[in-house]
């Protein structure tokens, strides 16, 4: 209960500061044009943006999901002892293969 009030409180406080503490933005048309050092764009900047490391993003998702298993593991690591070390070592070894494969295929760069 208390946690929720605190979290919501911080978010609300910050949002109020941002919305109330600032003058409304207003601009004439030439002022609003995107900055290109005096140049002009042909189109809106919003586009089907070619995010280059997309394969990395997919590998990252899988890896991140795996990391979620490690938090509960960390808590019982000392009490479970070698079992925990061995099991997590095996788990990480399996996933390292994925990272190695991705590295070999060169996905951790701009595609």
């Amino acid at each position, binding site marked *: 209960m*208390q*946690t929720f009030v*605190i*979290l919501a409180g*911080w*978010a609300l*406080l*910050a*949002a109020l*500061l*941002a*919305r109330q*503490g*600032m*003058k*409304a*933005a*207003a*601009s004439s048309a030439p*002022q*609003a*044009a*995107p*900055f290109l*050092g005096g140049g002009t*764009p042909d189109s*809106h*900047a*919003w586009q089907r*943006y070619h*995010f*280059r*490391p997309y394969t*990395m*993003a997919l590998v*990252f998702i899988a*890896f*991140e999901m795996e*990391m979620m298993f*490690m*938090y509960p593991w*960390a*808590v*019982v*690591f*000392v*009490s479970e*002892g*070698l079992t925990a*070390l061995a099991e*997590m*070592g095996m788990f*990480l070894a399996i996933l*390292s293969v994925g*990272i190695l494969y*991705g*590295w070999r295929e060169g996905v*951790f*760069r*701009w595609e």
Partner: protein
Amino acid sequence: MIAGLVLAVLATLAFGALLAVALDGRLAILAAQGARQRVETEAPDRLNRDLAPAWYLALAAIGLSVVPFAEGAALIDSPVGIVVWGSCEALIVVTVFLHGWSPNAPFPLIGAYRYAAIGLPVLLPSMFVLIAAALPAESLSFVAIVDSQRELWNVIRQPLGLPLFCIVALALTLRGPMDYADAADIATGTSAEESGPARVLWDIARAAMLVSVSAIAATVFLGGPLGPVLPGPVWLWLKIAGLMALFVLGGRRIARTTPSRMLSILWVILLPLSFLHLAISGVLAL
């Protein structure tokens, strides 16, 4: 008790942010910016433009709320504190992305995507480092992590941890070698179309986040409020200030490589290093 902790968080954030801006030598600059016109771009996403700096600030406050100011006294004493902080980190990536997306302009957009590409994999070393710190504490709570450092601080027990976390901290606060969102080659990136108070608020939020990240680092590696003679909060504040100075000064003096190269470095060098760090910490904790 709770009111005191709320006040402590607020005061730490406010004075810490002031200190961070002063360390950057930008107090006068922000004061001057605040009075200027706030420009609006063509067809922006107004809601996200206004809220992105607010969320950044709120995440800084939430991050600082899980930090114990005295032994056993955190505003949010969560049993899963490091996961709460991890979620804050993930939401920071979202927030910085939104900041760059919302103006509908080319340079902010490039900055936003660049930050997403670097900010996401930066989470991995961060998680490894925090999990390693949780091993000897046998708990995910920051209170327990502080408690586990009574004899030996983690900065000595797990020597790779703080250096790795420094890189994470620079990325989360958009600083120096890890400032891929607001870089010079894209005319200050996600902030390129912001002026006046909006720019000031973003800078303040960045400064507040620096306080928060330093507080986390101080808690995890430098024993948080532990220390002789002086009361706990004072020790914490001293450690926070020291780390802030380290991040500000270090950030200014290390060059930033291209994003593609940094991505490779993150996965090919820093991730294996974090593996190694966890393995060493694990063996030592047994």
